[in-house]
């Protein structure tokens, strides 16, 4: 049975807009079942939201769990449409009544919010880079070469964006690049070579 995943908008934007690797995203979506709510759907790049294959694979959910966290989160204009909290609610629901494999949240505040408030989600919580690593090394669902390919694309894109001061592709900043991305690439390489450096 396919395993359920909930991811924030940044995960989809990463593959569609930052890396321009929709095939990698669809590959994941053929293996795991991804669930999204209305807010996240509205935040998706149009090219992806209109993609027939994407629409046939993704599971749309309508429950407005965000209403329940509203008093605790910022309601400034800038954050009004953030889908992270919608994703957290859907993940909590799946975890309670069905099953949840991963909740992928890159945004720091929402990631910490989940960790603080929902102990039952702590073990499922990951980020875009962590997800690729788990999918390869724990679930053994994607090959080492594919994981390295994705990481290399992230690395290249981060280096380009840094030079041009263009922002954070796939939510990667300097810290994530040096402390998470590069070590993860090394771990995958070591694992591929059966522990040999």
């Amino acid at each position: 049975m396919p395993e359920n995943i909930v991811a924030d908008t940044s995960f989809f934007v990463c593959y569609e807009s930052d890396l321009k690797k929709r095939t990698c995203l669809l590959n994941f979506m053929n293996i795991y079942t991804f669930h999204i709510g209305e807010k996240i759907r509205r935040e998706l790049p149009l090219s992806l939201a209109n993609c027939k294959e994407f629409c046939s694979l993704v599971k749309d959910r309508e429950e407005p769990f965000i209403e329940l966290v509203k008093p605790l989160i910022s309601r400034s204009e800038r954050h009004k449409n953030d889908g992270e909290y919608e994703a957290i609610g859907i993940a909590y629901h799946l975890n309670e009544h069905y099953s949840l494999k991963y909740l992928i949240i890159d945004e720091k505040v929402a990631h910490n919010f989940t960790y603080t408030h929902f102990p039952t989600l702590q073990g499922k919580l990951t980020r875009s880079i962590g997800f690729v690593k788990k999918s390869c090394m724990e679930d053994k669902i994607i090959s080492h070469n594919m994981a390295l390919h994705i990481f290399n694309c992230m690395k290249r894109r981060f280096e380009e964006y840094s030079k041009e001061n263009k922002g954070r592709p796939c939510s990667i900043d300097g810290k994530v690049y040096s402390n998470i991305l590069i070590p993860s690439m090394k771990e995958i390489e070591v694992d591929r070579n059966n522990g040999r450096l």
Partner: protein
Amino acid sequence: MMDDKKDDARQKGLENLVLLVLGAKDDELSVLHLEKEVFLLWNFHPAIREYISYIKHYKGPYSADIQKIIHHPFYLDNCWKYTPPARTDNLSGGFVELTEKGRNEYQRIYRAISKTESVKPLLTGIKMVRELYDKLSLEELLLIIYDTYPEYKEHSTVSRDIEVKKEYLAKRMRTKGIIDDQRFNELVMR
């Protein structure tokens, strides 16, 4: 005849809802928490609006239905125990917890309804609100409810007291990791 049936269903539905909220965690719950947590569920799940109504009040959204059910249940007699507030406590409204009979009834009802797809989101919502809001003190809970739903606030000494203490309360919530810096600023600046 028709109205009697409707009233019975409403009464039964509301008592079951209170039982489900109380049973979602083992700890006792203040009446204030119960009332506000059900209010959040009322905003979240359209079916609940059939069972209950809220009006504006000096302690934020208020439901006479909940007060009535806690003190005089019709179907679920002896399923919960009410403890009145201490003399110095003018916020909690007292405390409620399930009795052994109530816990058995909770298990029975939960088992019966949790397989129904349309009920699952409500059950998730109940667990979420208890997980999120039980840990707030009475004053912290009032601060965020006043701030989020100002239209339900009737000005009173209670709301003035909370207003005076808002920076202290918001700081405490930020220290406990309940809210982030941005929410802190919103609560303090308003």
